[in-house]
């Protein structure tokens, strides 16, 4: 990983494809699992697929001479997504603990007071 003339032979579309697959898996987890922690995990996967997509396009724009600034912005976004994900995780888990205390379990279907 010499940082000089870095020859990336990996096309950015592959990275994008990977992020698509991860997104699919994340959504699968969110929709089909019942316990809150796993849903939250798959949410993290989806977030990560987002960062990957940003990375892919950052890589793509870095290759275009005039667009270095956009590539940099892409990376900034990744950085902030990770930061916000951390904050979100903290609050989310606190929420699930409260939910567990309230409902005795973190089965998401239990919290259905808004039912008709």
């Amino acid at each position, binding site marked *: 990983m010499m940082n000089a003339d870095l020859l990336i032979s990996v096309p950015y579309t592959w990275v994008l494809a990977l992020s698509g697959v991860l997104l699919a898996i994340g959504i699968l987890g969110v929709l089909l699992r019942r316990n809150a922690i796993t849903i939250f995990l798959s949410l993290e996967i989806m977030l990560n697929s987002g960062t990957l997509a940003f990375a892919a396009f950052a890589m793509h724009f870095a290759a275009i001479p005039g667009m270095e600034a956009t590539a940099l912005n892409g990376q900034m976004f990744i950085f902030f997504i990770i930061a916000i994900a951390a904050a979100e995780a903290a609050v989310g888990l606190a929420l699930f603990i409260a939910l567990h205390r309230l409902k005795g379990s973190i089965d*998401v279907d239990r*919290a259905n*007071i*808004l039912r008709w």
Partner: protein
Amino acid sequence: MLGTLWLIPIVCLVGAVVNLLLGASGARKSAITIVGVGSVGLAAIASWVTIWQFLRPSTGEYEAIVESYFTWIRFNSLEIGFSFQLDPLSVAMLAFTTLVGFLVHLYSVGYMKTETDRGYARYFAYLNLFMFSMLMLVLGSNLLVLFIGWEGVGLCSYLLVGFYFDKEFSADAGNKAFIVNRIGDLGLLFAIFVILNVFGTLEFTELFGLLNSYGAAQQYGGAMTVIGILLFVAAIGKSAQIPLFVWHPDAMAGPSPVSALIHAATMVTTGVYLVVRCNFFFQLSPVAMLTVAIVGGTTAIFAATIALVQNDIKKVLAYSTISQLGTMFLAVGVGAYIAAIFHVIMFAFIQACLFLGAGSVIHSCSGERNLRKMGGLKKYLPKTYWTFWLAAITVAAILPVSGFVSKNAILTKVFEAGVTDLNGFGLIFYLLWVLGICGAALTGYYMFRLVYMTFEGSFRGSEETEGYIHEAGWTMTFPLQVLAFLSVIGGLALGFPGRLFHLKGTSFIHSFLGPLVLASPGNGVDEGHSLAFGLEWFLVILSVAVALRGIQLARRWYKKDPTFSEPNALAVRFPAVHKLLFNKYWVDEVYDRTLIRPVHRLAVLCWEIIDVIIIDTFIVNGSAFVTQLTGDVLRFLQTGRVRNYALSVALGILAIAVILW
């Protein structure tokens, strides 16, 4: 009192308001009388003084005075002022209206004595209000002010006809009068709109100026006919001509002085006044003139035939009024405006006198109206008898009396129109002349049938009512005498046919009203002596002879033979004709079946189908049902489970992606 024309109507209005207040606060009859009669008396005096001032500069040339008080409507270019006008025509109308009005007020003091205080106050309030609107109508200088008066008069006729509102029949009659009048008023309203649209002004003077120019006929040709017809529709409604006369006989349900003042003297003649006032429209459209003539002629003969067999004293007089009005419109139809106005004035006095006479007869027979239950009242009501007899003579137009003067003037004019082939309809005018002569004969017959049935022979009523019969007080007999006197000599004074006796110059009334009439380009001033001298005398003698024949027939059947054997025999021989005439050609029933019932059925139909079915069930309840349905359906989406919502979000995004892609 020039310059304060507004004082005359306002006095009557004040009288009406005060009376209403007095009625409400339960004042005594005497106070109400003073206010009621006093106010009209004041108005009469004020108007006579104004007339005297108007006539004083007898240079023969009387210029119209227009007093405008304030701008009523200002709408960008259009500006209609509230103003009164005093010109020969309005002077004529003003004169006899205030005079007859005052006399009827005086008469009704005695007539309404038996009423309760409240009713008495209410009666006088309405009567004063009527005088106010009548004066507004007469004095108005533009069609809109006239329209106020027009509506006011219709309203008061409704109020007064329906005065005995506790009796079901009079309430219906009032209603009928008002509705039929309203149909006529619609015509006037449209006429006003059209005039505004075409000429941009409603002032009579300005309209007269616009139309007096030579080219007017070509320039406004088509509009003239339309306006003429519309104005005539209004006149039909108000003066009870053929299609809209049904309300007039029923209006007899009101108290007799009301019938005398409103349904005989003043209101019904306003139709003629309107047509004469707007003569410039009719002069320029031969078609309108013709329709007026035809309708007038046919109404005259039509009403006369019905009057032959009526047994109710007031119904006979009602039909005689309608037939006289018919002849007036016939006169207007042939362009004899001044003759028509002259007849209006004479007719006002005559019919008022007849109706008041009938009123005193009914009053004395304690409400009895059927001719067959009266008779031989000559000895009980001497004054009523001879005033009634005199008025009957003038109606029948026998030689020396004024009724003759005005009626013959009209008939000669009609004949003359026939001779000069006025705007090409000469033949029709000959026919109308013939109808006029027959009408004159019938008038003579039914008037004297009425006179003989009530006053001649023996009393056919019950003994007990016979005991009560007594001459009424001076308040009732004095107006009768004045009216009788006026109706006899009035005609001679105003319109003596100097021409018949080789006197040069025209009668006073012709010279007085002459300049008002638009000189129709076609046939020159209507005073033209196109008829040969001998021919005129022949016409006069013919009509008088015909009238005398009618009277003689009536005398033979009703005076000589107390059992009326011959007319009854005649009725038996021609039962169909008798029944047809007696039931007024079933006009009311026809109207009922053709107009009223279908409209009623339509209304019921609308109610059942549109209202009940469409609106109630479909729209109102329907929408409620739909919302409730969707509510139920959508309710199941709210499962309360977070995962379902996440699923719908995902599917939503997918849908958007698909759409965008």
